[in-house]
């Protein structure tokens, strides 16, 4: 066996194992830092306008249609949530802060009823300028919503630029939402 061959026989698997280990380490570190979620799906709605819908208001608030968010004066969020959803209650204080900071947040209540919603808003605060009700969940399916909460970032031309599935966190706001707001306002 030539020395080169012997070195290759030992070196190539070693390099492969180290590279693989490094890859896994980076993956796990990014998962721990909430920078990477293996369950997250890219939304097909990115770069497009939301599909046509017209939903009634609920809990004494005005509903809205796709035409109402076709050209918002400033970038805005559409937040899908439900009173029966635990992570929705978790992200509510953060949504409240964002709304207080001047960001328009419109809500769509997913498969919910007025009474539970009113209780939810009374307890967790109401960051929404408008609140529509998708009682059947049909509009959610058309948007590709696969769970609540989900948050969509819509720019001034009514195009969806970002979708986040799960409860928003201060880290996500800092790392993703704030740069988007800067870029699109």
């Amino acid at each position, binding site marked *: 066996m*030539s020395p080169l*061959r012997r070195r290759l026989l030992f070196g190539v698997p070693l390099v492969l194992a180290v590279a693989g280990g490094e890859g896994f380490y980076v993956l796990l570190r990014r998962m721990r830092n909430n920078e990477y979620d293996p*369950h997250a*799906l*890219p*939304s*097909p709605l990115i770069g497009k306008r939301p599909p046509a819908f017209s939903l009634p208001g609920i809990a004494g608030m005005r509903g809205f249609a796709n035409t109402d968010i076709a050209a918002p004066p400033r970038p805005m969020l559409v937040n899908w949530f439900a009173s029966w959803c635990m992570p929705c209650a978790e992200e509510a204080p953060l949504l409240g802060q964002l709304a207080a900071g001047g960001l328009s947040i419109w809500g769509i209540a997913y498969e919910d009823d007025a009474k539970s919603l009113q209780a939810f808003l009374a307890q967790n605060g109401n960051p929404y300028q408008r609140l529509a009700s998708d009682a059947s*969940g049909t509009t959610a*399916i*058309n*948007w*590709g919503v*696969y*769970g609540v909460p989900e948050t969509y970032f819509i720019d001034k031309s009514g195009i969806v630029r970002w979708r986040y599935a799960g409860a928003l966190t201060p880290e996500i706001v800092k790392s993703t939402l704030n740069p988007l707001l800067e870029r699109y306002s």
Partner: protein
Amino acid sequence: MRRLLLLLCLLPAFALAQTMITRDGVTLTPPQEKRAEAVGGQLRCLVCQNESIEESNAKLAAQLRGIIRTQVKQGVPDKQILAYMVQRYGIFVLLKPPFLPLTWLLYAMPVLALAVGFAAFWFGRRHGNAPKPLDEAEAARLEELLRE
């Protein structure tokens, strides 16, 4: 007599009703149901990501099964039903990934692995020739070493 006649007339309807299958709020004939199951079996449930829509107990999966069955009843072709889902949830919803620029490496992998295997084999063969026979001096040295 009249009642009997009525019953007789209704008999085929009973038989038909028995063979019809109702699932997720839509009633289908057995072939339609089979088609619906085949379509649902190709789609990933997005709530519990390793199950198909047919297998899943998630509420969203039940709603999507209802949509599939309604479309099957309307005679929408399989491809169009799958496209309906892909339009909403992206290609991830398909349990079998389609051949796309994004997935070509996935499909090319067996061929690539085979090529690498052949290359390794060829490389090994070329350099793995048996050593040259020993010349006289080397043979003498070997003798000497073995004697020690």
